[in-house]
């Protein structure tokens, strides 16, 4: 079965590109850096599709279920006979699905960047960073060992940091990069502790073994982790919740979402790749990867559900009030990831009740395409207008026909209008929510309506609203910028028709799903109403929207200010943590720790200053000391030490 060894090339090719471009790119390869990066990624993409075809269609299933295959495993650090850190490649439905998503979106972004980043001074560096990111992300999704996940997780964080801070001469970009790094790093602390808890009780770091041990209700590991408790919750709940905190940090779940909107300071294709389609779903992927363990613990799943649902709703409300188009998209990303999270949270493992799991993965899959399309479209618009602000746009539909159509398709897809991709996946999520938790269903339905409202607010503000005021001669951009838009638009229409539930389910067995027209009636009609509302407000220039905004009053202002979450963080850090914890510790460090060391050093210096005169350089003094010593020893041995 292990004839998947060629999968090694998928992450290794971008790594090689990163090394080559990182070392020689700027000096020797700046002309062909983009082509080189794109070509190597194209190879990876083709290999991924080959792997998908082999896995899903050629290899026979065992008892009708897709199996987990360890294609490659190398023990890297052996701590004890059972505990080791391995590097390896796992092949199962979700890793293959993620391979397809990451490589194809990354490829589209590589191609788009050929046009978008053209003429940048650090063009080769940009491609080196993109390759590093792609390598880390691919390594993450193929991990067999939870510590391997953690290492690639950090690598992903680093490359995200580098790419957000790509325009490092801009202070806001530097601040955003720092913020993203610190916030996710803070969350990763939780992840690490979670790994250690699971590893401690499970006695292994291997994901497969962990799942095996913690899903058997009779195993000694499961009994020990569920009976051990801390502050009223079992260690299993603690471990999983901490791991989820790590995932929430990367996936921008409330309250760790504050870095995502700021991360839009990076180049737009980077936002499309990292902050829309791949890295931010790493948290969802992590929960899905450990889902059998999560499904053993109701409390952890409840946390996942409510955090996801709350984030989805909050982000959707904020998105309605933002004016920077990339920030709108950022909040919409956060909202959609919230969808995926709560879909996982309400799911059970296996069989009919695994609908939420399958829906979540499906939404991850379709979302990657239409969200990266939205970002690349926004990139095109920004390239044209040289601004991120909605008020500088309007009436662009005649100037940028390709972008206009692609953007419209993406908006319809994310809004969930049949037959676009988002409709199918969102439908499954709503169905799963309806079957398990009516409150969540209500939130999801409302969020869906909000989603289509703010997406079409964006669409009408960019492409309709007022006559265009933009004049420049480079037009819509070269073909390398249009081609990815066209391909992704085709995906945004087409991928919804993939019979996803046949391939990716919680237990590998195909799941029967059916689209219930009556059930779809409510969400679709809400969506269409919201679109009509957006059209009424923003299609032509009028003051209806301002009137409505002022009618909402304080609520609108609060949403516009992102519900003051940033301010709360600042208050906690600047007013509470710094003066109450930071400064006393700094004082202790300066006066006690440093003081002790300075005391030792000063004492030594003083003593040596006093006695250094002994070494005078005069031979006769030395002779005198020598005779003195002989005399003293003589006295000692003759008279005292008899």
């Amino acid at each position, binding site marked *: 079965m292990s004839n998947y060894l060629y999968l090694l090339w998928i992450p290794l090719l971008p790594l090689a590109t990163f090394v080559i471009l990182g070392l020689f790119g700027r000096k020797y390869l700046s002309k062909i850096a983009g082509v080189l990066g794109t070509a190597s990624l194209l190879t990876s993409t083709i290999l991924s599709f080959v792997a998908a075809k082999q896995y899903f269609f050629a290899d026979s299933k065992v008892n009708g279920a897709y199996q987990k295959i360890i294609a490659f495993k190398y023990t890297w650090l052996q701590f004890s006979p059972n505990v080791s850190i391995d590097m390896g490649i796992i092949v199962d439905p979700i890793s293959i699905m993620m391979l397809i998503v990451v490589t194809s979106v990354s490829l589209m972004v590589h191609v788009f960047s050929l046009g978008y980043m053209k003429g940048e001074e650090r063009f080769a560096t940009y491609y080196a960073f993109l390759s590093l990111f792609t390598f880390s992300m691919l390594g993450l999704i193929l991990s067999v060992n939870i510590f391997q996940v953690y290492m690639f997780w950090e690598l992903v964080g680093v490359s995200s940091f580098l790419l957000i801070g790509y325009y490092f001469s801009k202070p806001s970009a530097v601040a955003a990069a720092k913020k993203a790094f610190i916030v996710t790093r803070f969350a990763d602390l939780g992840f690490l502790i979670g790994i250690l808890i699971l590893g401690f009780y499970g006695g292994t770091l291997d994901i497969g073994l962990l799942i095996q041990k913690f899903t058997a209700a009779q195993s000694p590991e499961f009994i020990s982790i569920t009976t051990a408790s801390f502050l009223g919750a079992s260690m299993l709940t603690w471990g999983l919740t901490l791991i989820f905190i790590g995932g929430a940090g990367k996936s921008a779940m409330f309250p760790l979402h504050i870095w995502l909107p700021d991360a839009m300071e990076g180049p737009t294709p980077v936002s499309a790749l990292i902050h829309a389609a791949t890295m931010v779903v790493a948290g969802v992927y992590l929960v899905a990867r450990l889902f059998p363990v999560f499904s053993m613990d109701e409390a952890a799943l409840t946390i996942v559900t409510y955090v996801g649902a709350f984030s989805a709703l909050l982000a959707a409300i904020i998105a309605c009030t933002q004016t920077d188009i990339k920030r709108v998209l950022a909040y919409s990303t956060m909202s959609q990831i919230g969808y995926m999270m709560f879909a996982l949270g309400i799911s059970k493992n296996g069989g009919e009740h695994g609908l939420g799991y399958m829906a979540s993965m499906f939404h991850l899959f379709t979302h990657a395409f239409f969200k990266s399309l939205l970002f690349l479209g926004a990139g095109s618009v920004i390239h044209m207008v040289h601004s991120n602000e909605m008020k500088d746009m309007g009436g662009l539909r005649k100037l940028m026909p390709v972008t206009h159509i692609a953007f419209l398709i993406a908006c319809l897809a994310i809004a969930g209008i049949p037959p676009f991709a988002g409709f199918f996946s969102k439908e499954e999520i709503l169905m799963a929510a309806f079957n398990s938790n009516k409150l969540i269903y209500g939130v999801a339905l409302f969020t869906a309506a909000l989603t289509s409202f703010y997406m079409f607010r964006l669409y009408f503000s960019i492409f309709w609203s007022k006559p265009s005021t933009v004049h420049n001669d480079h037009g819509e951009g070269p073909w390398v910028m249009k081609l990815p838009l066209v391909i992704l638009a085709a995906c945004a229409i087409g991928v919804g028709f993939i019979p996803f539930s046949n391939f990716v389910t919680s237990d590998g067995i195909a799941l029967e799903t059916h689209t219930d027209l009556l059930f779809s009636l409510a969400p679709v009609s809400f969506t269409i109403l919201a679109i009509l509302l957006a059209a009424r407000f923003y299609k032509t220039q009028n003051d209806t929207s301002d009137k409505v905004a002022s009618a909402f009053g304080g609520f609108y202002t609060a949403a516009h200010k992102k519900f003051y979450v940033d301010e709360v963080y600042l208050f906690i850090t600047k007013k509470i943590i710094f003066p109450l914890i930071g400064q006393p510790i700094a004082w202790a460090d300066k006066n006690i720790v440093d003081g002790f060391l300075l005391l030792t050093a000063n004492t030594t210096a003083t003593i040596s200053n006093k006695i*250094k*005169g002994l*070494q*005078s*350089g*005069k*031979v*006769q003094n030395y*002779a*005198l000391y020598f*005779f003195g010593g002989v005399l003293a020893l003589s006295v000692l041995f003759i008279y005292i030490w008899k």
Partner: protein
Amino acid sequence: MNEVPLTHILFVSTTLFFIGMYGLFTRRNIITMLMSIELMLNSVNINFVAFNKYLFPDKLDGLFFSLFIITIAAAEAAVAIAIIINLYRSHNSIDVDDATEMKF
């Protein structure tokens, strides 16, 4: 002829030793210091010979020791004078107070 008592000879050698030591500490000229060291060595030689003669008249160990010391003293004098010549070349002086670079 009366035998000279051992203490007399020891008195001579001790005197010689401390004359040598006094010279080593007070003279600044290296050659004089070298001569003082020779004095001290020879006082030791006298001790060896005297003790051999008075305490173990039938043995020759003390005599051999003094012979060794004389040999080594000759070699040592050669090395010391070579050092002195080098010192003179580099410092243009054979005064020990002029050669005090090796200090703190």
